[in-house]
């Protein structure tokens, strides 16, 4: 694994090399693996770019240390997908004051002491999901909500967004459980829901794994036809795949922003000015449009 040593500005002498440091808060989740992959593929198109990936293994302090490492290694651009807003605000501020442009991906930091934020809005996505479900169920029915870890902001936002989305309708959330983003937990919780309620019209899970787990539970109970399954994230090999296979009825993309990050980084390196905030839209994938690659939502 020693193949990619840290930033070594000595590969291509003829042309100016740029080193980008990427601090990923946790490669446990496929979505974040995807983010790194997107960045890598985008950067691969620009030979002058060299990206050094680091993984903080879900440890805020470790990620903080990584920022410090990148600063002392004097990278040209720092991309960070922070685990926590609060504790990483300051190290990032140090980086910017040290003259290193910082692109913040996915999760916001406090204040404005960074160069550019790129991310999607979990609340909006949750809302969109809620509205889609209201439409799909004709405004009424029993819904099961399998929530992501409720101590995490995405979990909280998707939840509150969803509530906004279904507000005013006659939808009833009959069963709600925290499955902590984990498929086995989702399956267990769904089994409990199935045991308790004979009529469930829709399952909304905060990520596609959860939805998939719920589907398997319902299928085992022979009731998967009676309900719709909606998830979030829409990774090509997961959510989208599930929709294509008719497992999920809909999934909402939560874009990684990897590609956008590299574009922005290039702009910065070429001295162009970049917007402070780039909010990525989401895409809806359902039976009808999955073939065409989904539709962008406003």
């Amino acid at each position, binding site marked *: 694994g020693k193949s990619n040593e840290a930033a070594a500005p000595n590969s291509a002498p003829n042309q100016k090399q740029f080193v980008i440091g990427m601090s990923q808060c946790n*490669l*446990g989740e*496929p979505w974040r*693996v995807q983010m790194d992959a997107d960045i890598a*593929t985008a950067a691969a198109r620009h030979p002058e770019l060299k990206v050094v990936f680091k993984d903080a293994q879900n440890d805020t302090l470790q990620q903080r240390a990584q920022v410090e490492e990148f600063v002392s290694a004097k990278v040209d651009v720092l991309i960070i997908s922070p685990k926590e807003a609060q504790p990483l605000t300051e190290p990032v501020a140090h980086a910017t004051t040290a003259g290193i442009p910082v692109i913040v991906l996915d999760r916001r930091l406090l204040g404005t002491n960074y160069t550019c934020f790129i991310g999607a809005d979990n609340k909006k996505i949750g809302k969109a999901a809620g509205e889609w479900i209201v439409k799909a169920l004709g405004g009424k029915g029993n819904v099961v909500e399998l929530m992501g870890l*409720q101590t995490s902001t995405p979990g909280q936002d998707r939840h509150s967004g969803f509530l906004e989305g279904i507000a005013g309708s006659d939808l009833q959330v009959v*069963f*709600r*459980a*925290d499955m*902590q983003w984990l*498929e*086995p937990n989702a*399956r*267990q*919780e769904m*089994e*409990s829901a*199935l*045991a*308790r309620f004979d009529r469930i019209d829709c399952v909304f899970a905060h990520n596609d794994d959860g939805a*998939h*787990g719920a589907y*398997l539970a319902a299928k*085992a*109970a*022979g009731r998967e036809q009676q309900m719709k399954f909606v998830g979030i994230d829409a990774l*090509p*090999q*997961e959510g*989208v*795949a599930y929709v*294509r*296979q008719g497992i999920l009825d809909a999934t909402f993309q939560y874009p990684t922003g990897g590609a956008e990050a590299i574009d922005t980084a290039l702009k910065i390196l070429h001295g162009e000015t970049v917007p402070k905030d780039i909010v990525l839209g989401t895409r809806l994938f359902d039976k009808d449009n999955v073939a065409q690659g989904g539709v962008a939502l406003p």
Partner: protein
Amino acid sequence: MLASPAGRAFLALLLVLIIGVIFNADGAFFKIGTHRDTLRQASVYGILACGMTLVILSGGIDLSVGSMLALVAVCCAQMAIHWNWSGWCVVPACLIIGGCCGGVSGFVTARLGVQPFIATLAMMVLARGLAKYASGGMKVSTALMNPDGSFRYVEVPRFFRLVDHRILGGNLSVVTLIFAACIAVAWVLMSKHRWGRYLYAIGGNEEASRLSGVPVVAAKTLAYVASGMFAAVAGICQAAQEQQGDPEAGMGYELMAIAMVVIGGTSLMGGRGGIGLTLLGVLTIGYLDKILSINAVPEAGRLVLTGIIIVVAVLTQRRKRT
């Protein structure tokens, strides 16, 4: 009856079941489906607990079962989905992988004399790493990437469906059967085979066993190998149920398995206990989980209650120091 450890362990289970009867989530607890699902859910842990029992009896402990499960799940998915091998090849291959991992930690503990806790801790980290290598950090699922980056989708392997199947009019999951089989195997090994007696002896007094001609190193190593193989079975079940191999699977399962063994009444000091006790322990924790789940108890409450009930359950069966 309360004299025997089994009796006491049974008491703990009873305690939990009574709680279930009281908080039955408007009758959900009395549906047969609930119990079927409880057993299905508990099965994977239970299979791990079988191997764990052998290791703990011999006076050791195996923290690596969760990671070995993940490694096997990933490899299993690779073989079954991507290379679509038949179950007849996949299962033995998986068992070999698990056995090897177990063998390594067994060798390091029994032969090189490293404390089991630390040896298996290392294996826990190592196997997790291997699982991520093998899977490239992504879930190994039925969605295969084409060279051009687009995806094509393959069928879920037949033998996955088989494992995730139900029988007896959908009232019993196949994984539960597999768990039962594991219990049976472990029981036979422990109480009918010479090796089981060796494990008890080693757990009770290693030096005395050695001086009585017990092949200590071999017997101990085998215990870890067995644990690895049970973990492999669990990994196959996990992969089959998720229809994919998740390198993150099995996180923290080791503690779960150990808790099940100990709540049964098997002593972590080794030498005392049995697989029957473990079965009771598995059911106790399995039902506890389920009851909290069907009552949709919020996360915080769940944790607090679990903690308290574990202690109470164990207190019902503590053996007084003489």
